[in-house]
């Protein structure tokens, strides 16, 4: 912006009734120079003269009574885009300047640009003295105090229990893998675990501990330091909660309520104090909502620097939260809904130039779709870069990927596969495993030995390539017969000597396919053991025509059953418990040449008579690995279904959460152990859930009143209400229809939105209502704050750790369903 424009804007204040205070007037000259140096008006100290009621203090938190009646698009405030609008509605201020915000009292419908977030406050003049500086930043005092308090709650006695608590067993171990740079596999995206690894690195941990559940930490594991780093994310939740409430336009008391609830919820506290992913997940969920509300408040300053920044920050935040756990997709959906509504509004704005429309769309696509995906992929890129050694997760990945890991010996496998070779066969479908068999038999169908697809390496994955019955066995002295396209082979399971076999019996899960089993032994068998090798192509050598001999790793094969004509296939069907939840292998009757689930490649290859290969393989392309790993994660995640045969005392159902029906014992419950119990502060959970129900009722009443035309301004109510309600709904409802096993900590991100809703409703009905006196508001606020604190204090032991026999801790079992005591 050219300084001239700003100067022009400064002309307008003279026409407005008066300026808000003396020192603002005093500072005009400063202001002028400051803005000239600043690229955008909104960043500079553009003093906006208020055209209406006096603002007693620059501290906006005291603006309770004035808020929301002030038009949110003052032309002079940085004024790049909305000058025109003000000219159109010269009378807007009169419209807004009546009555309270009390929706019942206000009869006139709002018109013009109605804001709904935080009131834009007049930028303060640059401070000239320290006193002024402090006075101008008074608003930051409460969050600073809350942050300090949060440090105390989060860090207090954080190293008290020297044992591996709950899922530290997983995430600590994954952190160790990063330090040892060994490839592992897990259902969660890598960002959170990399941060655990980083925490380990920063605190000087060498990655040598294997984090067995419940075990005591040895001397050399700096678990306290690691927990402190994780807990820092939990500390940051508190100021984020505060500032989000501010940005959502809540009154100062409501902001305190939000901060208090975030600070004093025992479940959030407890989950933040260990080496878990949840503190990071919560942190990034909070930042996403914060950035979104920040962005919302820039809505009348499209394409300003702040606008771009907060939009981009929202995108990055989405990327981060999704890279910690997939649960982050729910908050992404919230941002998505907000954006769709926003764009729909813009789409209906006929006065907006098409160019701006396109820019708006482009900005959203770039910042909210492309940017998060880049962040997500970057976390995987980093993951692959760090984990470049062979480790326990190898078998989840494609053979080529494994070949490129340090410590992997695939490169020295003999290259050409021959009869008599011992091989493992890798399915090439996304997330495919190794062809596997074990002595257990099918309890259904043929009752023969099971054949499955398995994701870990063991010797039950080894198979011998042998010729048909009657043909001579490969002779140790004779000429080597290499495997070629069209050869008919038998696959003999190395450990049990049985042959891979198929017959027209329906497979146990995919009933339309034939069952594949292991049958016979070294001498017994029939023609149902014959498989025809069909070459698809070779990753290195290209088309099938170029493939003369079959190479390990790179040649893609299919196995056709000679008698039945079906194809060996392993898709994503999971066997029940009797098959150890491994992947079902079946024989597909239809021939779909494009189905990668029927593609196999030779992974490990042993043959003493062949020279050891020394091949440099192609690098596995990143995008392919990325996709492969994500599909594998998805498959494993879906396989985490509750086992009806086992009673899992830790698991809970979504319906148990909103009213806190169940808690969760996070560690052993012996008398000599320090015990942690994951349970929310009951009043916060109950109040939050109740407020959600109330919000729906209020919405219904308001809608009816609107239909009868007796409702005025409700933009703010509906804006915050939508964020809170849809945020809650999107985080909660998917768990209801998800098949996987769920735990109470899955509700923790959801809880945030019910907290916001509670504060919002209290704010709406009491704290900003004109019908209540200041005294009443103090009483309500005081009572709520005290209740929250008292309830926290009562239950603080759950998060700080309880010693001695649990039954001696009196009065903790407020609901009979809590299994906190031994009985």
């Amino acid at each position, binding site marked *: 912006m050219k300084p001239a424009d700003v100067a022009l804007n400064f002309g307008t204040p003279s026409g407005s009734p008066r300026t808000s205070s003396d020192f603002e007037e005093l500072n005009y000259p400063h202001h002028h120079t400051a803005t000239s140096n600043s690229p955008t008006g909104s960043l500079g100290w553009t003093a906006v003269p208020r055209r209406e009621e006096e603002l007693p203090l620059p501290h906006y938190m005291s603006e309770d009574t004035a808020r929301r009646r002030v038009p949110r698009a003052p032309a002079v405030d940085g004024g790049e885009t909305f000058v025109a609008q003000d000219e159109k509605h010269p009378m807007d201020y009169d419209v807004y300047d009546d009555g309270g915000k009390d929706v019942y009292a206000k009869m006139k419908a709002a018109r013009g640009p109605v804001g709904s977030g935080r009131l834009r406050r007049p930028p303060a003049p640059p401070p000239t003295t320290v006193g002024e500086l402090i006075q101008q930043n008074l608003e930051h005092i409460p969050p600073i105090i809350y942050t300090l308090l949060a440090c105390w709650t989060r860090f207090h006695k954080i190293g008290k229990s020297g044992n591996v608590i709950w899922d530290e067993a997983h995430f600590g171990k994954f952190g160790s893998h990063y330090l040892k740079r060994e490839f592992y596999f897990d259902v969660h995206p890598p960002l959170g675990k990399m941060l655990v690894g980083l925490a380990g690195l920063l605190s000087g941990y060498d990655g040598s501990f294997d984090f067995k559940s419940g075990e005591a930490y040895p001397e050399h594991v700096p678990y306290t330091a690691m927990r402190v780093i994780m807990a820092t994310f939990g500390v940051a939740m508190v100021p984020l909660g505060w500032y989000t409430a501010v940005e959502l336009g809540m009154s100062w008391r409501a902001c305190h309520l939000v901060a208090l609830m975030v600070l004093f919820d025992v479940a959030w506290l407890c989950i933040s104090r260990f080496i878990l992913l949840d503190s990071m997940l919560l942190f990034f969920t909070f930042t996403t909502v914060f950035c979104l509300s920040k962005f919302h408040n820039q809505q009348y300053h499209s394409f300003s620097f702040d606008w771009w920044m907060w939009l981009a920050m929202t995108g990055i935040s989405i990327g981060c939260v999704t890279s910690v756990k997939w649960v982050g997709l729910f908050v992404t959906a919230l941002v998505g809904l907000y954006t769709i509504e926003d764009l*729909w509004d813009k*789409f*209906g704005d006929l006065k907006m130039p098409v160019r701006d429309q396109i820019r708006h769309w482009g900005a959203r696509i770039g910042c909210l779709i492309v940017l998060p995906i880049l962040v997500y992929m970057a976390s995987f890129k980093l993951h692959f870069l760090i984990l470049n050694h062979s480790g326990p997760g190898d078998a989840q990945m494609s053979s080529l990927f494994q070949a490129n890991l340090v410590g992997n010996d695939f490169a020295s496998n003999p290259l050409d596969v021959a009869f008599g070779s011992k091989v493992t066969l890798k399915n090439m479908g996304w997330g495919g495993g190794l062809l596997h068999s074990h002595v257990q038999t099918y309890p259904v169908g043929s009752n023969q030995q099971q054949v499955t697809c398995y994701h870990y390496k063991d010797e039950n994955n080894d198979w011998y390539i042998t010729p048909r019955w009657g043909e001579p066995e490969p002779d140790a002295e004779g000429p080597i017969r290499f495997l070629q396209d069209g050869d008919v082979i038998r696959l003999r399971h190395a450990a049990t000597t049985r042959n891979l076999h198929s017959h027209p019996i329906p497979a146990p899960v995919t009933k*339309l396919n034939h069952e594949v089993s292991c049958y016979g032994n070294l001498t017994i068998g029939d023609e149902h053991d014959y498989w025809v090798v069909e070459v698809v192509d070779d990753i290195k050598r290209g088309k099938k025509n170029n493939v003369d001999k079959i190479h390990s790793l790179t040649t893609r094969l299919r196995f056709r059953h000679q*008698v039945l004509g079906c194809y060996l296939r392993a898709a994503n069907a999971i066997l029940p418990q009797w098959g150890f939840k491994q992947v079902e292998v079946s024989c597909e009757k*239809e021939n779909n040449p494009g189905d990668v689930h029927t593609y196999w490649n030779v992974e490990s290859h042993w043959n003493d008579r062949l020279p050891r290969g020394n091949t440099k393989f192609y690098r596995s392309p990143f995008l392919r690995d990325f996709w492969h790993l994500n599909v594998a994660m998805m498959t494993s995640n879906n396989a985490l279904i509750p086992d009806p045969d086992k*009673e899992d005392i830790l698991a809970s159902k979504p319906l148990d959460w909103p009213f806190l029906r169940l808690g969760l014992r996070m560690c052993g419950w012996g008398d000599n152990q320090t015990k942690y119990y994951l349970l929310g502060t009951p009043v916060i959970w109950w109040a939050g859930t109740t407020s959600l129900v109330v919000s729906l009722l209020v919405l219904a009443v308001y809608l009816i009143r609107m*239909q009868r035309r007796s409702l005025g301004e409700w933009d703010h109510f509906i804006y915050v209400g939508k964020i809170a309600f849809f945020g809650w709904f999107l985080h909660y409802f998917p768990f209801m229809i998800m098949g996987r096993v769920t735990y109470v900590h899955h509700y923790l991100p959801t809880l945030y939105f019910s907290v916001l809703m509670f504060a919002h409703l209290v704010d709406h009905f009491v704290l900003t209502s004109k019908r209540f006196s200041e005294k009443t508001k103090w009483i309500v606020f005081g009572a709520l704050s005290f209740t929250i604190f008292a309830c926290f204090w009562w239950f603080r032991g759950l998060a700080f750790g309880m010693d001695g026999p649990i039954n001696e801790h009196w009065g903790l079992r407020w609901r009979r369903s809590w299994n906190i005591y031994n009985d």
Partner: protein
Amino acid sequence: MSGVQDVRQRNKGKGINRDASGPSSAVDYDDHNVAYLPSRSYIESFLNTEEASAAVVAILTIIAFFTRFYKINHPDQVVFDEVHFGKFASYYIRREYYFDVHPPLAKLLFGLAGWFVGYDGHFDFENIGDSYTENHVPYVGLRALPAILGSLTVPIVYAIMKECGYSTIIAAFSAIIILFDNAHVAQSRLILLDATLIFFLSLTMYSYVRFKKLRYQEFSPQWWGWLLATGTFMACTWASKVNGILTVVAVGVAVLIDLWDILDYKKGHSMQYFWKHFIARAAGLIALPLVIYLSVFWVHLAILSNTGPGDAFMSPSFQETLRGNELLMKSHEIRYYDTVTIKHKDTQVYLHSHPERYPLKYDDGRISSQGQQVTGYGHEDSNNQWQIIPTKALPETGRGRIVRHEDVIQLLHVNTGTVLMTHDVASPLMATNEEFTTWPKDDHSRYNDTLFHLRLSDAAPGEAWKSKSGHFRLIHVPTKVAMWSHPTQLPDWAFKQQEINGNKNANEKGAVWYVNEIVDSQDPDLKAKLEEVEMKEPKRLNFFKKFGELQLLMLQHNAGLTASHPYASGPINWPFLLSGISFWTQNEGQKQIYLIGNIIGWWASVGGICIYIGILGADLLARRRGLEPIPDDVRNRLWNSTGFFIIVWAVHYFPFYLMSRQLFIHHYLPSHVASALVAGSVLSFVLSETINTPVSAWGPSVKPRPTTYADHGVKAPVMVAVFAIAMFSLYLFISPLTYGTPGLTGEQVNARRLLSSWTLHFAAKESGNI
């Protein structure tokens, strides 16, 4: 009114430009002159005369009856779910109590039909393929009922479209989709509930449309008449099948939208006026249906007054209202030192013990107590006998010796002289549950572990424990587990008997037991009582209590139908007709009945829905940008009339996504009817942007608006004729699968497998021998 004028002008302009026929004054003609309007094509005018319309509907109805009744006596065997619903008809005629998840209306009608044709209810419909002729069952009479209702659905569909203001040819199009649909035909020819459900559903829609059209004559007798008709038919739908409740929801949604509209301040109605409307609808669409629904159950319970196979589902107090019920006849108070046999309620096995012991070590490496085995055994045996030992002082004689609710007892296994106990050792099959075993009665070292709390179901304090009717849970005193069983067999060491263990959750369903028989009693009178066989008069129970219990059980069992079925399919497959159900097969002659729809009709319907959503989406986007591509009248028709069909379609379809019970393609048939209506109205819109208005009757307060007429020209009849011929040909082609005759060779079966996902029998390619 200038807006209306505008619209009219625009409307007219379009109509004329396109069809280039006649002067624009046509719109002012009166209704009676419809036939020879110069602006309409001759064929359109002709078809929309009352005579032509009547002729069309007559032809459609006759064909419908023919298609539904053709060879209705084939096969003369029990087909698919006739196993259930035929059986229920028999029970009504024999007046024996049965239990089913569906409300009784449709089944009552079958009972009625059976009674009309003189069926005596002797046949039990045990298995698919049982012969009717050999058993002398007048099954054609039973099958005629759904066939009639299914045939009548066709003219009703036609009438719905007509009443909504669509042209004859469009109405015929919708009706043809139903008429030549193989799924509807197959479902209507057999003793199944869906034809009744769909019949009442379409009547509900018809009545609601009629009601809605009278909205300017509110509270007039006709208005009330159609309102009450809507409520009545809605209740009938609801009472026919459990998914009829969705019809109630659909009408509810439509009514809410309607009321919301009345509430709008722009309409200028007072709140009083609104409440009047509200109360009228509450009476007609809530109170009346409830009364009807309850009366159906009342009739159901009044007819089924004898004991029957459904007894076991019900509570003891319910069972005692049934004549000849075992509980009524054989329930006696139990006294201490009585010897009894105890049965598990869900799986009907006896509590059993024998001298064999648990193996020291199980296969998975866990260790047992090596105590005496306690198992569930399905047959009578002296090892099922247990004696009830008191833990308190008893009077010598009298009623003080009766065992009561909340008593603490011991159970003595008579043959081995040991008492039942449990302890904190993992059970053989479930590591989380406690092992049940026994302990020598003279060894008091484990006395506490042998104590059990007797907790009767819904009992008042101090209630006496009775055989048969006294359902109870046995709660272990020290560890609070309940004696529990589940249908899982123990390995060979326990002779494959059923496992019994202690479940920590005492409220689990599998923890309910009852005393089957008092084998030996201390009560001298009992012997006499046991022998007396007089007929006791059934007890009475409040109808609402019975209804409440039955309704709750129906819901529970409906949700519990989760077992997998080879022909079950997910909702996503339905609109596209990806899979069917094999109803019946006969190897001799390679005959089969396979429930599958007419793919042309189904895809046209789902295509119609897609186009509709596309049109509305495009319209919304355009309006957002200030453009109005569709004239207001036409748009209102799309929103209001087609919108209603869409609501019915969506409400009858999407809830299935949330259900975890087993689902079949015939659950989509109600939605399919609605989608046929949508397809018709979309076709009308696509062919011409003209509509017949007004369709609603004038009211005193409404200014009459000019009349406009739809004109689809010659192309509509031609298109519909081509469509009808295509539908009919495909219908004929698939009909061997629908009617189960004639038999097909393997190649013919393969030809009829239009989609690779259809799993037909007798396909030519042998997939191998098992």
